[in-house]
């Protein structure tokens, strides 16, 4: 039965695509990537259907179940992230076919974008599926190496500097994570997340190890103050790469934090760490938004918006300790937020990329009048803005609603205040951008470097984010089918 092997195929198919696209050469690689992307979308949809139908399931690689082997775990949450990756990935692939079209064989990493991108897709899928804390390390490094290289793809000095910083941050994160795993394993003697969850007992070494792992993942997720590598990396990468980085890569490491904090680690095991993460998340929302407000270059603005939006993801941890209702609402809300931000941010970055190639520069103030000559792109920015601000019926609104409900159900109104204030700040920086685009002005536009047909890709992604409230019931079902909520006693 093919359906049983979905977790294996979701890793093997993109990996095969990566290897084949390398062999195919830069002319035929886009075709390999498109075929692979289509296959992944089909597999991801099948996984969602399977999880909704039969609940979470484990896949013992090599026939060896944990603790001997490595188990892949497919549950509602991982299916959701995989399908998000598939949709955004498809969009990025389609967009990239036009973006990287050039006759210069040496441009953009000698046509190796496709291979790197499929490696990244492989590793994200692997990360969402793995149930083993050491395997997480390998997956994280796959993500890290592919992401760093993709950032440097344009070969410019800024991109290389950003890539180097990103690489050092990755190294620091990798070593911290591995140290954490070493300590955790020395104390508990297990690597499988489910077994760990069952066997964790209060212990200094295990707690230290877990805290170090969380710290490393926080770095990879770019939570303030560990966001130092993100704006430069996301801002100077080629636009399809920025889109994938902002919308997917930070979610990869975040997903592991989510599983560790809410599934593996019992509430209160790590003391005040969850509250600390929530506080940092709040700081991120404010600091990222304020910085976004003051950026003069469009992709920097979008990158800082990611710093801010990442903050929301961490509010789930303090909310989760406020009782069962708050827990369920917060987890669902944060899943909705991850999906809606993923779609909207990908659309926003791709649209920014098209604007930049239309204008030939990235200065916001000189993009006056874009609405007249690039209506599709302006509309994309507006739609993405709706999600960022959390206006209905966008996914951002659904997420905000659920998270505020969670805060109120838990009697912690101050987190609700943070959420509401975050919407205000997002409105500020999105309106600043929109005001310029919609203003009257004689924008001097060159001939579009990318084919205009690809401008529909970001529009479709942003539009999907705007109507995402309609998918809240589906996401709720997936959340109920996630091991996090099942373990917490919320059964579908």
């Amino acid at each position: 039965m093919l359906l049983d092997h979905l977790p294996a195929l979701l890793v093997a198919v993109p990996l095969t695509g990566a290897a084949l696209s390398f062999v195919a050469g830069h002319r035929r690689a886009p075709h390999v990537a498109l075929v692979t992307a289509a296959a992944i979308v089909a597999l991801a949809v099948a996984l969602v259907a399977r999880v909704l139908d039969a609940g979470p399931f484990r896949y013992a690689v090599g026939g060896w179940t944990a603790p001997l082997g490595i188990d892949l775990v497919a549950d509602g949450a991982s299916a959701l992230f995989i399908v998000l990756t598939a949709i955004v990935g498809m969009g990025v692939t389609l967009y990239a076919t036009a973006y990287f079209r050039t006759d210069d064989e040496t441009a953009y990493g000698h046509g190796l974008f496709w291979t790197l991108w499929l490696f990244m897709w492989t590793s994200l899928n692997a990360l969402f599926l793995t149930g083993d804390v050491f395997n997480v390390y390998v997956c994280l490094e796959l993500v890290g190496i592919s992401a760093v290289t993709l950032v440097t793809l344009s070969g410019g000095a800024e991109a290389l500097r950003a890539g180097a910083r990103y690489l050092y941050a990755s190294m620091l994160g990798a070593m911290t994570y591995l140290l954490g795993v070493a300590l955790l394993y020395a104390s508990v003697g297990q690597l499988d997340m489910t077994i760990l969850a069952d066997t964790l007992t209060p212990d200094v070494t295990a707690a230290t190890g877990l805290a170090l792992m969380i710290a490393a993942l926080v770095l990879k997720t770019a939570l303030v103050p560990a966001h130092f590598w993100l704006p430069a990396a996301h801002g100077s990468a080629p636009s399809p790469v920025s889109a994938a980085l902002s919308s997917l890569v930070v979610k990869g490491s975040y997903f592991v934090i989510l599983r560790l904090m809410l599934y593996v680690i019992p509430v209160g095991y790590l003391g005040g760490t969850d509250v600390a993460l929530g506080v940092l998340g709040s700081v991120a929302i404010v600091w990222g938004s304020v910085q976004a407000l003051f950026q003069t270059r469009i992709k920097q603005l979008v990158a800082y918006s990611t710093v801010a939006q990442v903050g929301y993801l961490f509010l789930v941890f303090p909310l989760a300790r406020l009782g069962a209702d708050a827990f369920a609402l917060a987890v669902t809300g944060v899943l909705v937020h991850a999906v809606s931000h993923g779609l909207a941010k990908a659309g926003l970055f791709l649209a920014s990329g098209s604007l930049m190639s239309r204008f030939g520069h990235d200065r916001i103030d000189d993009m006056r009048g874009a609405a007249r000559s690039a209506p599709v792109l302006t509309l994309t920015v507006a739609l993405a803005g709706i999600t960022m601000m959390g206006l209905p019926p966008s996914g951002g609104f659904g997420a905000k609603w659920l998270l505020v409900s969670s805060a109120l159900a838990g009697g912690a109104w101050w987190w609700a205040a943070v959420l509401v204030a975050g919407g205000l700040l997002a409105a500020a920086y999105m309106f600043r951008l929109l005001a310029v685009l919609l203003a009257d002005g004689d924008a001097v536009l060159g001939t579009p470097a990318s084919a205009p047909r690809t401008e529909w890709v970001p529009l479709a992604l942003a539009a999907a984010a705007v109507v995402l409230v309609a998918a809240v019931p589906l996401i709720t079902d997936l959340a109920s089918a996630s091991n996090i909520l099942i373990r917490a006693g919320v059964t579908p």
Partner: protein
Amino acid sequence: MSEHRHRTRLLPLTAAMLMLGVIGRAILALPTTGDGLAVPMRAGAEASGIPNVITAVLLDFRGYDTLLEIAVLMLATVAVLSLREDPAALSRRIAGGAGPVLGTLTRALAPIMLLVAGHLVLVGSSGPGGAFQGGAVLGAAGILLMLSGYARPAWASRRAVRWVLAVGLIVFIGVALYPLLSGGTLLQYPPENRKDLILLVEALLTLSIGASLVSLFLASASSTEGGGRR
């Protein structure tokens, strides 16, 4: 102040010391014995008939890690290739070339190294050895050849080089997926041809790893003409 002279900086030093304290405290809190997964692993290796327990862990129990690890290695090669400045880096000659001594020595050593690499692969399933070790020796042979002035052989087109680099991973995935046809899971080799499949994968991996190492070297080496740009 010269940038090579380093002034000790207090804050990073404090951070590093605090980290040392954190590690120290965690380690001292451990009991002096701890088996981890040693016992079930040994039992499992014995049950599946693999003499070397570490090999069993690497290739069998945690074969998935190894698959991804190969992916990491190929990814790194692709990454470095994408960063090369000279599009023809893979087919160029290294500056200087070899004198008569190095030339003769290389010619004599290369076949032996090839032999050693093959041996390492063959013994890999039962003792220390395997694709990485074999690939490392193979790569060293290749680099030695490049250093002594040999370029890529004329028959090896760009496409062929790419195939050599990728074949290990491609075959590994193929073999990993093969059990799916007969109802097994990913990497669950059928017992009857388990040995052959592993040997096939290891051999091709050795080739790819060796080629990767040579590529890494060539992609970052300075080009013949005029050295590195400032």
